[in-house]
C-alpha cells in the first residue's frame, strides 16, 4: 500500500499538480470574490488531467504487473486524490490568512474563515463521493464522473455563496463568532470523513468487478 502511494505521488501524478494548489491559492488575494471557486479549479484542471494520464500511461496494466491487491490500487489513487485536496486546503488557508491581514475579513460573499474552510473541505468530499465510485465502475471513463461531480460542487458552492450574501441567518451560522464557526468546521469535518469513507468503500466494491 505504502509503495502504491509512493508510485502515485512520484510516477503517476505529474509534479505540476503538487505546485498547482499554491499557484491557485494566490487567487485568494483577489478582493471581494467568490472564494469557493479557488477550490473548484482542482476539478476543472487537475482531475481530468490526472485521470487521462492514467489511460495514456497504461497505468492499470502497469499496476496489474505488480504484486498488489486490487483494493490497494483503489485506495492508493483515492488517498493520492485526498492528499492533493489537502494541499489545496492548506495553501488556501495560508493565502486566506494573508488575504485577511491585507484586506480584513469582510467579504460580500462567503468570508474567509474557519467555517469557509470546513465548507471547502466538504465540497471536496461531495465531489469524491460522486466522482470516485462512478469512475471506478470502469477505471477508464472519467468524463461523465468529472462532469457530474463538477455540477454537484457548482450547485453546492452556489448554495453557500449565494446564501451567505442573501440571507442573514446563513451569515449568522457561517460568518458568526468563533464558536459558531468552530461548530460548523467540526460538523463539516465529520461529514467529510464519512463521505470520503463511503466513497472509497463504494469504489473498492465496484473496482473488484472491473476487467482491466
Amino acid at each position: 500500500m505504502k509503495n502504491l502511494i509512493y508510485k502515485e505521488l512520484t510516477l503517476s501524478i505529474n509534479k505540476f499538480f503538487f505546485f498547482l494548489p499554491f499557484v491557485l491559492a494566490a487567487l485568494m488575494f483577489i478582493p471581494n470574490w467568490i472564494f469557493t471557486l479557488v477550490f473548484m479549479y482542482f476539478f476543472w484542471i487537475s482531475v481530468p488531467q490526472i485521470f487521462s494520464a492514467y489511460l495514456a500511461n497504461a497505468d492499470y496494466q502497469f499496476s496489474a504487473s505488480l504484486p498488489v491487491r486490487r483494493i490497494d490500487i483503489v485506495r492508493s489513487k483515492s488517498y493520492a486524490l485526498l492528499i492533493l485536496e489537502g494541499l489545496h486546503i492548506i495553501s488556501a488557508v495560508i493565502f486566506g490568512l494573508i488575504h485577511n491581514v491585507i484586506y480584513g475579513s469582510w467579504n460580500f460573499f462567503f468570508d474567509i474563515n474557519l467555517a469557509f474552510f470546513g465548507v471547502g473541505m466538504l465540497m471536496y468530499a461531495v465531489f469524491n463521493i460522486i466522482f470516485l465510485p462512478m469512475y471506478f465502475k470502469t477505471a477508464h471513463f472519467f468524463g461523465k464522473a468529472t462532469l457530474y461531480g463538477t455540477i454537484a460542487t457548482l450547485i453546492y458552492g452556489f448554495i453557500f455563496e449565494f446564501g451567505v450574501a442573501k440571507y442573514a441567518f446563513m451569515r449568522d451560522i457561517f460568518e458568526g463568532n468563533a464558536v459558531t464557526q468552530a461548530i460548523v468546521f467540526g460538523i463539516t469535518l465529520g461529514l467529510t470523513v464519512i463521505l470520503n469513507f463511503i466513497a472509497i468503500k463504494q469504489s473498492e466494491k465496484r473496482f473488484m468487478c472491473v476487467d482491466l
Partner: protein
Amino acid sequence: MYSLDIKNLSKTYPSFKLDDVSFSIPQGYIMGFIGENGAGKTTTIKSMLNVIKRDCGDIIIFGRHIDEDELGIKSDIGYVSGESYYPKKTIREITKVVKRFFANWDDELYQSLLKRFNLNDKKRIDELSKGMQLKYLITVALSHHAKLLILDEPTSGLDPVARDDLLAVFQSIVENEEASILFSTHITSDVEKVADYVTFIKQGKIVESCSKDDLLDKYRLVNGTSDELSSIKDRLISYKTNVFGFNGLIKTENVDDQDTVKVGQPGLDDIMIYYANIEVKA
C-alpha cells in the same frame, strides 16, 4: 512439479467465451501459447492473473492457488503484457518505483542485465525500440528472480533479427535461471524455435496442449488428386482444393496404409491454418 497448472478456466463475454481451458507447464520449460488473433490467448493470461475476473477455474502456480496467495505468487512472476507503460518516463524513474514492490529485488543482477542488454537507464521508454522495451521489461522480471515469466505476444511487431535475439534470451533464461516461460504468440515459427511445449487455442477452446514434438507427430499433411479426396475427405481435419487436387491436414492415427495420397510433416503454422479452415470443410 508444475510451474503453472490451469484447470477448467472459463470466462464468458457477450460475444466470446473462454471455455474450460486447462493446461500446465512443467518447471524449467518454455511453453508457446499459440492461436490466431482473437482466439483467447490474452483473455486466458489475464484471467489466470486475476487481471480480469474469471467465471470459474483453478489457477495453481508453484503449487499454490492464486486465490489463496495472490501477492506471494505475483512476487514470483514476471508478467510482460507487451504494452509499454509510462512512455515519457526514464528507465531509472520506473525502476525506482518497481523495485520497491519486490522483497527479493537484486540490484546487482539488475545492473548486469542492463549492461548485457545494452540498456541506458537514462533513456525514456519511448526512446527505446520495441525490442529494447521488451528487454527492459524482461530485465525487471528477472531482477526479482521471477520463477515464471508470462509474456503476452512479446515478439509480435519485432523484426526477425530482434525476434531471434529475444528468443535466444528466453533460452538463456531457462538454462541459467531455471525459470519457466509461457509466451503467447501467433508467430508459430518462434514457438518452433524455442518452445518445449505448445498449447493451441482456438475460439476460446484448447485444441492441443502437449510437447511440441508430440504435437507435430500427431498430425500429417496430405495432398492428392481430386479423385483421392473423396476417399479421405471424412478423415481430414480440413482441406483446401486447387487446380491440381487438394491439400489437407489429418491426424496421424487416421492415415491408412491403403491411402495413395502423399503424406508429409506439417509445421505448427500448417496445423493452425488448417484448424482455422475447418469451417470451409463443413
